[in-house]
C-alpha cells in the first residue's frame, strides 16, 4: 500500500530530470503535497509562492507563456476550486501547458473535514475546454500520469491522495490520455472506477464472484478524454454499468460516463459516489463508509439491480 502522493513526487522528480522546462510551484503546503523533494533536487526550479492559490495559477499561466511546463500543487479543493476562474480564463482559454496537481483528493484527508475534502474537483476541471483530467489509481500510475502529462499539449489536472491505496500497476505501465484499463472481465455487469475506488471495485468484484456474479472492472484513469473504445466494448458485453468514485456523483465519473453512453451506447448506469453532501471529519475509512464508498455498497448495488432486472 502506498499513497498516490508518493507517485506524484516520484513523477515530478523524473519529469524534472527529463525536461528542463519543468518548474514546480507550491502554495505553502510543500510538506503536504510532497514537493519539498523537488525543491531539494532542483532548487532553482522550485518556487513557494505562499498561501495565494489564485496568484500561483496566474504565475503558471505566465510561465507556460514563457515556454516552461509549470506544475502547481496544493490541496485539490484549493488547486481546482480557489483558482477556478484563473484556470478557466487564463490557463484553459489560452490552452496553456500548466499542470495542476490536486493533492488530498476526495475523502483521503479524513480528519481535516469538509473544508479540506475535494469532492467536486473532477467536475469543475472536466467541464473546461482543453483540459485533460487524470485520476490515477495507485502510486506507480500517478508517477506515469505526471510523465504522460509532459507529452500533452494543453492543461492537465492530476488528482492524487494521501491515504495509502493498494498497488495495482508495475512501475513501467504507461498512462495514455483517452485510455483506461480493463482489469477484469465478466458479463453480468461492469464497474467503471477511478482513483482510490479502483481497488475497492476489484474487492467488490471478488465478493460478487463468490456469489456467482461475474463483473468487469475498468479503471478509467483518463476521465477526460474518456476511453470511448473501452466504453463501447463494455456496452457490448454487459447491460449494467456501475460507476465508482471518491467524488460527488454529479459531474464526476458518473457524469462523464453517462454523458457519453446515453448518446452512443445507452445502458443502465448506477452511481456509487458522494450523494450531494459535504464531507466531515473521521478516518478516511469512516468517511468513505459514511458516504457509501465501499466494496459492500458497490456489490450491493450490482446485486440489487440485477435482481430487479
Amino acid at each position, binding site marked *: 500500500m502506498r499513497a498516490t502522493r508518493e507517485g506524484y513526487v516520484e513523477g515530478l522528480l523524473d519529469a524534472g530530470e527529463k525536461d528542463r522546462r519543468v518548474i514546480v510551484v*507550491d502554495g*505553502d*503546503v*510543500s*510538506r*503536504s503535497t510532497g514537493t*519539498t523533494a523537488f525543491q531539494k533536487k532542483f532548487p532553482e526550479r522550485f518556487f*513557494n*509562492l*505562499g*498561501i*495565494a492559490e*489564485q*496568484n500561483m495559477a496566474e504565475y503558471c499561466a505566465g510561465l507556460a507563456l514563457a515556454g516552461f511546463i509549470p506544475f502547481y500543487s496544493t490541496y485539490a*479543493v*484549493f488547486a481546482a476550486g*480557489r483558482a477556478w476562474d484563473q484556470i478557466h480564463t487564463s490557463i484553459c482559454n489560452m490552452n496553456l501547458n500548466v499542470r495542476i496537481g490536486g493533492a488530498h483528493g476526495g475523502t483521503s484527508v479524513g*480528519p*481535516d*473535514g*469538509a*473544508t*479540506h475534502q475535494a469532492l467536486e474537483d473532477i467536475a469543475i476541471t472536466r467541464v473546461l475546454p482543453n483540459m485533460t483530467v487524470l485520476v490515477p489509481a495507485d502510486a506507480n500510475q500517478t508517477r506515469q500520469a505526471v510523465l504522460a502529462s509532459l507529452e500533452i499539449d494543453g492543461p492537465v489536472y492530476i488528482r492524487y491522495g494521501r491515504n495509502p491505496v493498494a498497488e495495482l500497476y508495475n512501475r513501467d505501465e504507461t498512462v495514455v490520455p483517452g485510455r483506461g484499463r480493463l482489469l477484469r472481465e465478466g458479463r453480468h455487469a461492469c464497474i467503471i472506477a477511478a482513483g482510490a475506488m479502483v481497488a475497492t471495485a476489484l474487492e467488490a468484484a471478488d465478493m460478487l464472484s463468490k456469489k456467482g456474479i461475474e463483473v468487469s472492472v475498468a479503471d478509467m484513469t483518463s476521465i477526460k478524454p474518456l476511453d470511448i473504445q473501452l466504453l463501447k466494448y463494455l456496452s457490448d458485453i454487459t447491460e449494467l454499468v456501475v460507476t465508482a468514485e471518491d467524488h460527488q456523483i454529479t459531474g464526476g465519473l458518473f457524469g462523464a460516463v453517462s454523458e457519453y453512453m446515453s448518446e452512443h451506447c445507452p445502458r443502465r448506469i448506477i452511481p456509487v459516489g458522494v450523494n450531494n453532501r459535504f464531507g*466531515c*471529519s*473521521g*478516518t478516511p475509512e*469512516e*468517511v468513505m463508509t*459514511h458516504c457509501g464508498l465501499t466494496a459492500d455498497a458497490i456489490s450491493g448495488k450490482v446485486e440489487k439491480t440485477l435482481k430487479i432486472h
Partner: protein
Amino acid sequence: MVSPKVIREDILRMIHSAGSGHPGGSLSLVEILLHLYWKEMKIDPDNPQWKDRDRLVLSKGHGAPALYSILARRGFFPTDKLETLRKFGSGLEGHPHMQSLPGLDCSTGSLGHGLGIAAGMALGLTIRKSKARVFCILGDGELQEGSIWESAMSIPALKQTNLIAIVDRNHVQLDDAVDKVMPIEPLAYKWRAFGWAVAKCDGHDMVDIEKAFSNRTDKPLVIIAETVKGKGVSFMEDQALWHGKAPDSEQLRKALEELE
C-alpha cells in the same frame, strides 16, 4: 477566567487523542481568545443564537482546538466532549463547522475567507441597528491571500468600525517562517495604507491585549498581536514542523510538564 494553562492542556490532549491537528497555531491563540470570550465579547453561553451577541470569525480555522477548548470552558458545551476532536460524528470537526457545535458563529478552514464574511456580518448588524460587534482572527501567513486585501480595502471604505481584526502574528506558517516563504512586512504600514487604525500588543500578555482592544478610533481597528507559534512548549515554539502534527504520548507528557 480560566488560566491559559488549562486551555493549553486541553489543546495538547485533544490533538494527541485525535492523532492529527494543528498545535502550533492553536497554542499561539490562547490569550487572545481568553480575552475575547471572558472580557471583550457580549455573549450568552445559554443562548448561543442570541441575535445581538458579538461574533467571532476564526478565519484561521485550523486553530479550532483552541476555540473549542475556550467554548467548552466558557460553558457552551460540556468539557468532556473535547476529547472527541476530529472523531467521526463528534461535532468537533477538524475545522469549525457551525452547524455541528453550539457557539460557533462561522464555518472556516479554507484560508482567506474570514475577513470578508466578518465584514458582511458587521454590515448586516449595522443595517439591523444592532450594537453587536464582529471579531475576526487572521493568521499572518493567511495575509498572503489576495482576498484578505480586498476586504481590507472595503471595510474602511464602508466605515465599518463595528469590526475588529486581530492578526495572530506568530511569524511562522506551514512550510517555514513567514519571512522565508513570502514576507508580509511592513505590516502595520500596509494596514494603515488601506485605511485602518493599527494597534500592537504582546499577544500573550493579558494586560497588553486589553489595552490594544481599548483603542477607540473612527477607523476600523486591526490589532497585530505578537505571538509565539507553539507557545508554552519549548520544542514546539517557532517550529513550522509543529504546525500540523500531533504529539505522541511521550511528547504529550513532556509538553504538559512544561506548561506554566
